[in-house]
């Protein structure tokens, strides 16, 4: 009786959250900010031009429906609506509608002004944000620089114990504050006056403007928090500064937001009411969509992509997100210690077939440690990526022979139970069997059990997926750096590590990029893991919902309902 549910659950955790995401312990939302866009904004600001206020961009002459309301499935109940506590992508979407940070991200993934109307970097590690005078809380109080200082300190306060406080690494003294070694007042953020906020970063953080757009970096209403304590996020108590206010919250059912008339850009907000559902089961999600109960799905259930694409060509929307699927390799393992073995295992997996026939839902083949749209380093692509498969197989066999690995050798592949993961596991095993003659024992575990095994190094090959917050290359590099918490492969290249440290400390952008590119190349050639796919997020969205662009972080502010 329970299997379909546990499968649904699994799906909710592995695919929906994963694909987009920063799953549970993610600090921020995934971002698809392109380098070009950031440069454009920076140029505008440097030239002293006012950055444009950005909201629902409605092509002229578009007939709008009288009723501007939308129901979107959010895939899971949010873990919290408190910006300082929230960690999951699902929560960040709602928190991003309720609160607005210094900057925001529009539906194309561009960084646009939020509460800050302009900002500039006064020296390599100091940023000054100028807050707009028209920004007010939903209770009419002005949003001041002190609200940001209060919110950020609360976020990184050890007493708050926020999972997403790992973002502190980017702010001066952030790490020490989180560890309780320095007082909150030492955090690198201060209010120069009511409308001016100064942020000092730990090292060069060229993407700070994108970072402060995340829900976790929102200002917080001190008076309301002190008055209501833990209950301050409940309807009736919650004071917010974003485009929406909280109307209703029925746990495990829905969250209803209504337009905030006091929001500074309210004139450009079309939707007057947004309902977030928290349906985890992918099939239930689909049925709700088909029966007209919702306008916007979380994610298609596995195996339905091609049929639904044919049936709803105008409604199926898909796009790559800032996340990757890979097989983690335990570099401490006696067999996998040898780079030749790791390379051989990676080379023979036909990512084109995997993407087009096995997962078959619009994921993008991956031939390197970084996904497309990464910034801060030149991408490094495997030289064999364009070889014909025969040549790849021949080379891989040669490598294995050199390493003394005989056909018939057994490998152990661990994954967490779900149809999607199972398909990928079987495909991987079959590639190694047919092309290299290796035997793979597939072990399926419950999600948290798998995490425990991989985090603890108790595995040989493990299915994994990861979502990034920012496009900067330092994030994917965290997965393959020596002492990183996120390095599950347990590989370590001291030379590359040195280059990364030098790069992140460098205050010269060109030098930073050169050093990080060099490090990325070294690590790519070391084959610490097997990158497989860049994740994508296929979902159905009704044809009358306008403003949909990127699959990831989309504020309800950017949507509108067409006449239908």
């Amino acid at each position, binding site marked *: 009786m329970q299997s379909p549910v546990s499968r649904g659950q699994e799906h909710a955790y592995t695919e929906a959250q*994963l694909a987009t995401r920063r799953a549970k312990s993610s600090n921020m939302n995934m971002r698809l900010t392109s380098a070009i866009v950031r440069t454009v904004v920076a140029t505008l600001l440097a030239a002293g031009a006012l950055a444009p206020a950005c909201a629902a961009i409605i092509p002229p002459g578009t007939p709008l429906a009288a009723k501007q309301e939308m129901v979107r499935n959010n895939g899971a109940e949010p*873990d919290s609506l408190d910006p300082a506590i*929230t960690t999951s992508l699902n929560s960040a979407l709602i928190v991003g509608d309720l609160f607005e940070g210094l900057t925001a991200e529009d539906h194309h993934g561009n960084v646009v002004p939020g509460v800050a109307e302009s900002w500039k970097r006064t020296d390599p590690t100091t940023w000054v944000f100028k807050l707009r005078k028209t920004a007010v809380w939903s209770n009419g109080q002005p949003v001041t620089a002190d609200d940001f200082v209060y919110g950020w300190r609360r976020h990184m306060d050890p007493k708050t114990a926020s999972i997403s406080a790992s973002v502190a690494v980017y702010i001066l003294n952030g790490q020490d504050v*989180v560890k309780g070694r320095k007082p909150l007042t030492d955090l690198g953020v201060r209010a120069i006056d009511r409308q001016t906020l100064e942020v000092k970063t730990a090292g060069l953080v060229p993407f700070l403007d994108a970072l402060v757009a995340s829900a976790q970096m929102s200002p917080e209403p001190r008076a309301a928090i002190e008055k209501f304590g833990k209950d301050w996020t409940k309807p009736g108590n919650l004071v917010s500064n974003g485009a929406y206010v909280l109307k209703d919250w029925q746990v495990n059912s*829905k969250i209803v937001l209504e337009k905030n008339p006091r929001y500074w850009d309210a004139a450009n907000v079309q939707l007057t009411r947004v309902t977030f559902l928290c349906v985890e089961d992918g099939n*239930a999600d689909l*049925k709700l969509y*088909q029966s007209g109960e919702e306008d916007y799905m979380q994610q298609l259930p596995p195996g339905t992509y091609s049929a639904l694409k044919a049936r709803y060509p105008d409604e199926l929307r898909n796009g790559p997100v800032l996340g990757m699927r890979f097989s983690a390799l335990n570099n401490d393992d006696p067999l996998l210690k040898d780079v030749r073995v790791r390379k051989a295992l990676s080379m023979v997996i036909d990512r084109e077939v995997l993407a087009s026939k096995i997962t078959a839902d619009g994921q993008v083949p991956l031939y390197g440690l970084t996904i497309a749209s990464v910034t801060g380093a030149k991408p490094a692509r495997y030289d064999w990526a364009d070889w014909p498969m025969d040549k790849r197989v021949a080379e891989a066999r040669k490598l294995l022979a050199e390493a003394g690995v005989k056909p018939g050798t057994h490998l152990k592949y661990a994954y967490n139970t779900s149809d999607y993961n199972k398909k990928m596991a079987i495909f991987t095993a079959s590639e190694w069997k047919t092309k290299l003659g290796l035997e793979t024992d597939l072990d399926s575990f419950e999600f948290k059990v798998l995490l*425990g095994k991989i985090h603890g190094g108790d595995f040989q090959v493990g299915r994994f997926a990861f979502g990034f917050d920012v496009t900067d290359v330092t994030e994917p590099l965290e997965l393959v750096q020596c002492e990183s*918490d996120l390095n599950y492969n347990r590989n370590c290249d001291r030379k590359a590590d040195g280059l990364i440290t030098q790069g992140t400390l460098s205050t010269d952008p060109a030098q930073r990029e050169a050093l990080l590119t060099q490090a990325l190349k070294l690590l790519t050639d070391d084959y610490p893991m097997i990158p497989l796919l860049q994740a994508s997020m296929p979902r159905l969205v009704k044809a009358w919902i306008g403003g949909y662009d990127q699959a990831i972080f989309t504020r309800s502010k950017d949507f509108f309902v067409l006449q239908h």
Partner: protein
Amino acid sequence: MWAYVFRRLLVTIPTVLAVVTICYLLLHATPGGPFDSERKVSDAVLANLQAKYHLDMPLWKQYLYYLNDLVHGDLGASFRYADWSVNDLVKRALPVSLAIGGTAMVIAVVLGVALGIVAALRQNSAVDYLVMLFGNIGSVLPSFVLGPVLVLVFAITLPWLPSGGWDDFAPRYMVLPIALLTLINVSTIGRIMRGSLIEVMSSNFIRTARAKGLPTRLVVMRHALRPALLPVVSVLGPLAVGSITSAIVTESWFSIPGLGRLIVNGASDRDYTLVLGLVVLVTVMTVLLNLVVDLAYAWLDPKIRY
């Protein structure tokens, strides 16, 4: 009888304590913790989290803390639903599950008993076969098959009802989940009722009643029904607890914010306090419903005295 009830209620305390202790140990022995995710939490953050939730203490101390809160009626803070206490969550989910599961049980009992009687009295007739066919479908098809079929027919092909969701006890959202839970339970109850009544109808005292010249209706209502209900009543306790507290498939499929969803999410997220809180609730409900069942026995069977 009141002394008996009091004694039974007293026994609840050690029962709950034993169940909580076992669950507590099992939960903490389960691999993976509440804060495990793809993005491994840094040691500093993990230390802060563990301090916040007292997870940094020795297990026995944590356990005593938990028991102390429990005695004071506080089920603790949820890890998964960070803005809510377990008490809040249960307070909101219990009425939903009671409304769905309770209504379904009442309908299932009335329908099941009625169908069982009809089938038993017309044993091996077309009516019997029809009822039994219906009953077998209900028990053979699991809820994860019946649920989608109901949605396909009544929400998509005939767009009469929503395919899921919940809105403050609005009846239109309750029809399909109640129908599903009823279908599952009615077959069980119907089959038991039929079998039991057939057996009772062939016993000596029924022959005596017939010999007195009583019409069948009176024989059934006055003499056969009460003893025939005994086996039905004995399954009602567990059936009701199951329908109310762990209608996991139904609640997930129809996206109902009830206890079943909390249990699933709590378990997969290793939300220790939430799972323990629900375990306490299920234990108390099981004990209480079993007590009700035992009292009903005494009423149904004059041979039983407490």
